[in-house]
């Protein structure tokens, strides 16, 4: 017989990691029966600092996470990692391969790594990533790092899910025009240029710094009109272990600003808003499928033949959803 979720939550609060991993599976299953337990976990969470790490595929995110965690562990802080990879649009299955780059961390009891698949979520996060973060938070992890899927230009959800967002760029992937485009580069609290052992990395650092200097300053300012946070560019080389200490100091500095100023207050509200919308969207979606499934295929066939339009059909289908 499955252990009741309530019992798992009680064990989680005592730091039981077996309970943590089972609860994450239940969160991913999205059964409405477990929502009350997830709610209880949410209310008990709020202590951990959440770091989001995003960047294009192959930019070195997983390797950087591995180095970061290893170095953070030196001062004793416990670190949780949520590593996200995409689900197949054909089978719904996935290959979750981020762990391979983090094998040096597996035997450390102060580190917990969980791989998650996107399961139809398109913003770079997994559908239940933030519940998993809450679970690690309650289990007593000081820092939780969310590593997004390899992103393109527009998957910016991580900025509404983390306290400090790091955007990783690799050298040689674009010019200064790429750097001023809207989207992913705008959301960084900290820019990282990875693979700085490569000769062309200085160019990428310069492009990013120029982009940041060019921007009209929309940052939140203190009473003297100085921005509370100026986005830095940190160069790292995971291979040589360079820049990792600087990056951790920068994250800690951002955490302090986040915790002590208006910056954090506004950020926390944005995260709360995002979670409310997302949770409502998930509930709506599952109830929509639940109450329309029998007729959905026939309706879609008619829309494909243009006998019916998606606007009328959706309005009609939504009116049948049981709330």
């Amino acid at each position, binding site marked *: 017989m*499955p*252990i009741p979720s309530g019992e798992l939550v009680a064990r989680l609060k005592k730091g039981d*990691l*077996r309970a943590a*991993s*089972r609860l*994450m*599976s239940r969160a*991913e*299953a*999205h*059964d409405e029966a477990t929502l009350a337990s997830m709610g209880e976990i949410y209310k008990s969470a709020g202590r951990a600092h959440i770091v989001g790490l995003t960047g294009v595929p192959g930019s070195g995110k997983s390797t950087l996470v591995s180095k970061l965690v290893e170095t953070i562990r030196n001062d004793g802080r416990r670190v949780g990692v949520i590593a996200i990879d995409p*689900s*197949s*649009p*054909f*089978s*719904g*299955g*996935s*290959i*979750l*391969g981020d*762990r*391979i780059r983090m*094998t040096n961390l*597996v*035997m450390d009891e102060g580190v*917990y*790594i*969980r*791989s998650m*698949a*996107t*399961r*139809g979520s398109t913003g770079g996060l997994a559908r239940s990533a933030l519940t998993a973060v809450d679970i690690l938070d309650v289990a007593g992890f000081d820092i939780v790092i969310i590593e997004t899927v390899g992103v393109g230009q527009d998957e910016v959800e991580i900025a509404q899910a983390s306290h400090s967002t790091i955007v990783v760029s690799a050298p040689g992937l674009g010019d200064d025009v790429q750097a001023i485009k809207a989207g992913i580069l705008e959301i960084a609290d900290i820019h990282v240029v990875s693979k700085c052992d490569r000769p062309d990395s200085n160019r990428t650092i310069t492009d990013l710094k120029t982009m940041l200097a060019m921007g009209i300053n929309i940052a939140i300012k203190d009473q003297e009109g100085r921005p509370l946070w100026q986005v830095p560019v940190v160069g790292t080389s995971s291979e040589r272990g360079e820049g990792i200490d600087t990056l951790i100091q920068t994250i800690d500095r951002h955490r302090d600003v986040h915790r002590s100023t208006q910056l954090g207050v506004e950020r926390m509200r944005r995260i709360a808003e995002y979670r409310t919308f997302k949770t409502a969207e998930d509930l709506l*979606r*599952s109830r929509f*499928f*639940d109450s329309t*499934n029998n007729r959905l295929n026939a309706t879609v066939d008619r829309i494909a033949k243009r006998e019916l339009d998606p606007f009328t059909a959706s309005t009609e289908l939504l009116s049948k959803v049981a709330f």
Partner: protein
Amino acid sequence: MQSVYSLLCVKKHDGRILMSSPIRVLLAKVGLDGHDRGVKVVARTLRDAGMDVIYTGLHRTPDEVVNAAIQEDVDVLGISLLSGAHMTICPKIMALLEEKDASDTIVVVGGVVPDEDVNALKEMGVKELLLQDTPPNKIVETLQRLVDERGPR
């Protein structure tokens, strides 16, 4: 191609449509065995059957594999062995799962195992052996059956 969401929607026994949980599988290479072409083909097969597959990479220790299986809360732990070390490695893994209160993990072994060791491995608690010449769909069916037999957890 359809939305992943609709792929993951399944009808439950009581008629409700819910999001399904893909079967989670950890595929592990343990010890000095350096061949992972086969395990990658299996990973791909399971992915295409709609499962979430986590691969450990080469040269892991039994401790590392069991820790990963627990953190990932996998339904199935698949150990790929071509090195002949199965009678050393499998008992260690089974003992660690027991010790860490994770014996509800379904363990299957794939690769090359002589016939005379098959029963010994099963007595240890290995649920199934999927050896050479096992067709891909047999692997998929076996894992689905084992997870069904275990029931919800």
